[in-house]
């Protein structure tokens, strides 16, 4: 193949892409849709449930303050600290629950695997940026709140190419 033909073919291939759909996601207006409600773990079978590894969700009525999540995090990120909570539960005599520092967390989800009481899950919430370091530390009360996530954009493949729709 001659040099001229090669260059024309390359240019032609580029020009064809003017008709191809835009693939980029316009992020703050459009958000990606994820599978499920976030990464979860079933201790009875020992298998996780697929989902995004985002911000954690803590169930106060299930947490016993056993510190297994903090021990699991020790060798990974040391992001989990056990703190006192005001409310008293019969199953949580010490009244301690995990507090997570998202400045340190690597979102590996090993703390979720460590919890034997179905008390710690992960959610689809990934927008955690704040203006201060303290804002990244989530107390047990903040972790209890189920996030509101509106996500609808998925990859759609048509004859004109792939796009987020």
């Amino acid at each position, binding site marked *: 193949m001659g*040099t001229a033909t090669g260059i024309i073919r390359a240019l032609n291939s580029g020009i064809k892409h003017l008709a191809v759909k835009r693939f980029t996601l316009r992020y703050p207006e459009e958000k990606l849709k994820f599978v499920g409600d976030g*990464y979860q773990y079933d201790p009875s079978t020992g298998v996780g449930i*697929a*989902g995004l590894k985002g911000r954690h969700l803590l169930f106060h009525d299930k947490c016993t303050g056993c510190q297994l999540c903090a021990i699991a995090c020790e060798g990974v990120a040391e992001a989990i600290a056990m703190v006192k909570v005001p409310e008293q539960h019969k199953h949580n005599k010490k009244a301690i629950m995990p507090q997570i520092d998202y400045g340190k967390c690597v979102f590996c*989800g090993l703390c979720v695997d460590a919890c034997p009481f179905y008390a710690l899950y*992960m959610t689809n919430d990934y927008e955690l940026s704040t203006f201060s370091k303290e804002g990244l530390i989530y107390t047990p009360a903040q972790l209890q709140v189920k996030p509101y996530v509106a996500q609808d954009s998925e990859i759609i493949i048509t004859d004109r190419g*792939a796009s987020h729709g």
Partner: protein
Amino acid sequence: MTTELPTDIKSTSSEIQIDKPSSKWLPPGLALQKVDEKIMTLNVGPQHPGSGHMRLIVQIDGDYIVACDPDPGYVHRGEEKMAEYRNYITNIPHLERPVIHDSCNILYPYVLGVEELLGIEVPERAKYVRVIAAELNRCIYIMYWLAIYGIFLGHSTMFMWPTGDRELLIDLMEKMTGARVTHSHFIPGGVRNDLPANFEEVCLRQVNYFEKRIKEYAAVFYDNPILIARTQDTGVLSRQDAIRLGVTGSVLRASGIDYDVRKKEPYDVYDELDIQSIVMTEGDAYARSKIPWLDMMDSCNIIRQALQKMPKSGSVRVKLKPNPKGKGFDTVYKRVESGRGSLGCYIVSDGKPEPYRLKLSVPSFRNLIALPYLLKGEKLGNMPSVYWSLNYWPVEADR
């Protein structure tokens, strides 16, 4: 306490001898060297964008490279030492950090090794899920590398297209593992979670489209006369040199040696799948840059086969005890074919929950050894095309 002068200071004579190399070790580039008026020393990196996190000390005579001394080590993280203080499970998130784009493949040998140490039998479905994850990750890595290779050859279209098309596979990995780059998905005893509902269908659709897309790169990049002029017959690595220097992966296969760990030492279910290891005989930068691209098409083929043969239901993970430990003193060496070449992991266990010693044998470092031989006699302008064709990832080489 009497203080004595070290012997080497006593013996130093008054005149400094420049010609003879000093017995005292100095970092590269700092040792005194005889000055030649014709030769100029040029430091490419560590701040230069074209070098990655490393320095290339290049000596040039006019426009021709006389010698090249790569100086890696700027991003050394002590991964191997860190592994000695963490148990077999908490080692997983930090061991994938050297190559976050290929995180499944760097965890693969470690997980296989730990399974042999602990004597775990992996479920059949988990093996297939691992193969799919590893092949998707290989494509994600190669697309990233291809984008960098394109931009350093001045081909900005080849930067944009792979970065966009990589999103198709990152989306699949996100559905599968819950994270876009650092998946932490492999675990001794299988994978962390089962595939989501109708993943097979979505995977097949996106992989087919991805394959169609990468075939379009031929006209714009691989058949482009400008790329061929810049890469053909530059940095030729002969068959004998490739064996002598011990290079792996695409660099080895570009020099005409058919060696693929997936084929020669099949792990998990690779022996049941049809793998086509691509070999080219030219040994130049063009062959080295084309083989990963052809590898991606092969990976798409493997993913389709694995999706077809995978058991439709079953367990994907063996439940482990809280602190799994080996049975007394034991060593194990496992290796896999990563996006860059054969990646090995050597684990020594002394019966404790932590490994006694862990060693990663990484392909990036082994491919970098060839660089001084390839660059000798090349023009300085050809340096990026030869350097990036080695499929080199600085962070992985330093570990």
